[in-house]
């Protein structure tokens, strides 16, 4: 037995650690594209709907015949937040800004917004979506200042 923070008696449950392997075979061109500096979306060949996040199957017409296309990256910020209280696995990050940007192609993207002072960040501002690989080898994409 041990005592909980409220000093009431408790038992410690058996510990289990899990980190599932997430399949990406159907969206592999997206993850490979990031390494080449491209953010890719899919487009249904049958009905023309564009998907971001990329989807291998079209929920609109149920076709699985999809094209890959590179997004322009030209975005307008529609919503944002500065996250101060971070989740356990983000504790080593400094507080970060997450934004939703609407791209020229009509799809929206959720990503970190970097390279701006906080006071500059407004709904309606322009930003550029960029892909890169982090120093520890993780393919990533962020909104940043337009060139």
């Amino acid at each position, binding site marked *: 037995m041990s005592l909980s923070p409220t000093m009431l008696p408790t038992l410690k449950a058996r510990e289990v650690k899990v980190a599932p392997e997430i399949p990406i075979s159907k969206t592999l061109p997206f993850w490979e594209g990031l390494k080449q500096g491209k953010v890719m979306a899919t487009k249904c060949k049958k009905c023309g709907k564009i998907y971001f996040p990329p989807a291998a199957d079209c929920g609109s017409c149920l076709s699985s015949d999809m094209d890959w296309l590179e997004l322009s990256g030209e975005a307008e910020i*529609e*919503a944002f937040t500065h996250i101060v*209280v971070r989740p356990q696995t983000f504790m080593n990050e400094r507080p970060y800004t997450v934004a939703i940007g609407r791209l020229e192609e009509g799809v929206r*993207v959720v990503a970190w917004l970097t390279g701006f002072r906080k006071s500059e960040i407004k*709904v309606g501002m322009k930003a550029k979506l960029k892909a890169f690989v982090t120093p520890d080898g993780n393919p990533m994409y962020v909104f940043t200042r337009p060139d």
Partner: protein
Amino acid sequence: MRKVAIIGAGCSKFGERNDVTVAELAFEAFKPAVEDAGITPKDIEFVSVGTAGAGAWYEENLPAVIISEYCGLSGAGLIRCEAACASGSAAFASAYWAIASGQVDVAVAIGVEKMRQIDTLTMVEFIGRSGYYLWEFHNFGLTFPGYYAMHATAHMAKYGTTEEDLALVAVKNHKYASMNPIAHLRNRITVEEALSSPVIAWPLKLYDCCPITDGAATVILASEEAVKKFKVEDPVWVIGLGSACGTANLSKRKDFVGLESTVIAAQQAYKMAGITPNMVDVACVHDCFTIAEIMAYEDLGFCKKGEGPKLIREGQTEIGGKIPVNIDGGLKAKGHPIGATGIAMLYELTKQLRGEAVERSRQVPLKNYIALAHNVGGTGHYCYVTILKR
């Protein structure tokens, strides 16, 4: 479809409940509900349990059967419902459908959550993963305050909503929680205190966010025949029920100033009930974050889109105003044990419609004897709207 009534309701004390297991906590809400209905566990043919955190933030993997066994319900039909923060309403809907369809005559919906057995930052992690893990959490670490904060910045940009408007929601809900003995946070707060509390996910501050809470709630449902059989004196009829889901990816929504799932679920519920929003005497709406309550006013039709801030500024959502909202303290201050919340709303509204608010100061005036519960799972990932009439 048959008519369905709530014939009994119970609710546990909300807060940090390290004194009880999930089954013991559920029992605290189950027993008073059964006594309120004037039935015994043997009369219950179908059990629906709403809870979201099984195996993650509390230890039981299949809690519905643990709970039904503990409450003496073995032998009844059993289901567990998960609809994130609307799991309780999903359980209620399942019990409702079981009776409305003619399958059973008496059913129970039990909502329960144990969220305080793990540390806060791990909870922030689990809940943050509950948007769309792969596309919004894995690389970007979105938290639930973060998701709603994005709605807040969009609403502020479009309608001029201010941080003070958000604070007013918190001040109101803390006021009513201070009058509610089972509420988690019973301290009154001021606008200044809310505005100067630590930033969690800007523009949301500590006092814009609901607490992490343990709690349970139960309602007993019955068919019209069972209402007569058990000679129930004050049945509260379910006259409207709507449900809808939104996208998991926030980025796939049409806009961020409201929740489309609320609009759709509300339209269904109003249509089924044959009422308009201005006929509602009292409402419990999903205020996990202060901006959520303002969006709910608008999406439920209590005011026009963009006029939610005006409603709170004018005090129209207090007792005595146009439409009293969250007079139990809301998720914001009564607490938000996510699987229990939807049923706790129905508990409160049942008591209100029967004129039995435990504290007379919280009893709303009744004109049409109609109440509305609005329970959102995630950021509009799920939504249930339930309309009750005495």
